[in-house]
């Protein structure tokens, strides 16, 4: 039986966090491949260069909020401008440490965002998301 997801993208400026999250994804056995970026700009470039047909478009993106150069919110602004087929198919989660009420209010206004996910990402947490949002895949 093949895994339900082909590709997950992780964006977090802390490389150790990315490492831990990568491992969690691998351990869950729910995804074929995981790519991680410590710079939001690079993640955006990746998304701009890979169309859906090229099979490099992630179905799930986990995005950190506080990052240098380009933070999570700025990433979303750019992400909105991508052509639809280049957006993940197509769920974007914001990764948080603890939920700031201001962030929550801000996030509600963004249609592209599926929700918040509290760090750390664990195999069980990922399974929850897949069960809840990605039954159709």
């Amino acid at each position, binding site marked *: 039986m093949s895994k339900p997801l082909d590709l997950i993208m992780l964006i977090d400026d*802390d490389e*150790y966090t990315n*490492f*831990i999250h990568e*491992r969690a994804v691998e351990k869950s056995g729910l995804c074929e491949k995981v790519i991680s970026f410590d710079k939001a700009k690079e993640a955006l470039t990746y998304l701009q260069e890979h169309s859906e047909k090229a099979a490099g478009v992630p179905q799930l993106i986990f995005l950190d909020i506080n990052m240098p150069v380009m933070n999570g919110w700025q990433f979303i602004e750019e992400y909105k401008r991508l052509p639809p087929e280049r957006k993940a198919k197509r769920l974007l989660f914001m990764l948080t*440490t*603890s939920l*700031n009420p201001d962030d929550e209010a801000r996030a509600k206004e963004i249609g592209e965002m599926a929700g918040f996910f509290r*760090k750390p990402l664990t195999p069980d947490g990922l399974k929850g998301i897949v069960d809840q949002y990605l039954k159709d895949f």
Partner: protein
Amino acid sequence: MTIFPKAQIDPTTKMSSSYKTIVPLKPVALSTSIVLIVLGVLVILGWLAKIPALVQIHHSFVPMQFNTALGFLLVGAALLNVVLENRKLATGLAIVAGLVGMITLIQYIFNVDLGLDEFFMKHDITTKTSHPGRMAPNTALSFLTCAIAVGITGKTEVAIRMKVLVSAMVFALGFIAFTGYLLGVESTYGWGNLTRMALHTSLGFLVAGIGFSAVYWNSALELIDQVRRNRNAWTDGYAVVLTLMVFSADLSMPLGIATGIMYVIVVLIAFNLTRRGQSYWYATVVTAFIALGYQLSPEGAESWIVMVNRGMSVIVVWIVATLINRVKQSEADILEANASLEARVAERTETLQEMNAEMSRIVYVTSHDLQEPLRTTKGVVDIFIEDFQDKLDETSERYLHMITSSVDRMSALVSSLLDYSRIGQKKVITEVDLNEVVAGVQESLAASIEMGNATINVADLPTIRGFESDLGLLFQNLIGNAIKFRRPDIDPVVTISSSENSEYWKFEVCDNGIGIEVENREEIFKIFTRLHLKKEFEGTGIGLAHCKKIVELHNGEISMVPATTFGSIFKFTILKKLTSDE
């Protein structure tokens, strides 16, 4: 939020209830206008019916000229219409009276006869009259002044000041002439060898002055909030009247009598003024009058005495004026100092509030960011244990456990710091039933209450205004502490009670635990203060700091006193009239 009784905001009651005057000004104005009309009519009748008693009162007196009588009729009617608020009619009548006065003055000044004097009738009584039928120059001036008094309109401060001033001038012109009659000094009612002002004419202007003053004070007092601003106007009016009174007294007495000194009273009036430097103006005017009095008064003592007298009056006047100005200056300085002090307090308060907000933000962001590496550390340790499970011996596992538990502890500290910074942020004050709050706390502490076999006695608690979730946290911390810091082998008993005074709610949380040394009663409320080793009692040392911050948020105070036998009593107060501004 206060809801005013309806009657207080009803606009119809506002006007009539907002000012109270001792003198019923409007009736006074009304009756003076009637008096003037009657005076005018009587004298006109006197001329027409040839009744000398009406025209000149005494056969040696100057008659009130026909034009003068007509003038009083016009001025009286104008005043009546001012009171009745027929502005246009009043102005029209006043213009006619003013024209009569002005033309008469022109005739005097340019020594011409424009035919006004006997325009209406031939005058058969010419006692002390330079030109038959021509009113006295001071009478003509008074009519012109009356016309100006009616002609000034508007409710601005300048307009009101002018009205009051001109009204006072009318009064003063009448008063000067009248005192002349009283004291038998002709120079006050007769200028040069020109026509004299009649006795009843001088009385007429006295009455007119009162009438105009009454009607304008009345109109000014209706705008009660302007009265303070118009204080300068009243003061000027008083000063003018007083100056002219003193002047007339001065003229009526021979030189050498120190009447000049009375002008000091005029300068003293400047004390009532709000503006600085004004007393010098008064002094200047008064000095001019003192000099004028020297020129015009009847001859008296030797000239050196007169000079000394006048000179001393002037010196005293200026000394008083200077003193008044000094006082006014220091008053103004104090006001200014107060204003700048208030501005500085406001500025500092704003800075403090900004700093406070900045501090909260820093704490929030810092504690938020501090969590990140902690979580990573823990994650990596977990992965390490997973990957190297087989290769780890007991010692290395113990070391790893030490890392994990330290990280957990740090994590707990950081999140409690985060909670601390969030107290009272973006929350609203509501009515909080503390019985419900404490019941809720007992529920969430159920496990530890049961495990510790604790008893919680709660008296009936009030419903207060406050921040609900923070009040919950307050009781949770206090009850939690009371159970946590128990004496070994003694079941915890916690008693919660309340009382009140007019300003504050008072609460007591009493336990039978290990107690706290009196010398630590301040320390315990400081953030991250711990009195025990971690292995004795768990905790971050932030609980009571939390309590203190919450109580202070409710404008109250918290303190600890040792219980008489053992354990401690935590007392705190909460302000009854809590507002969200604080």
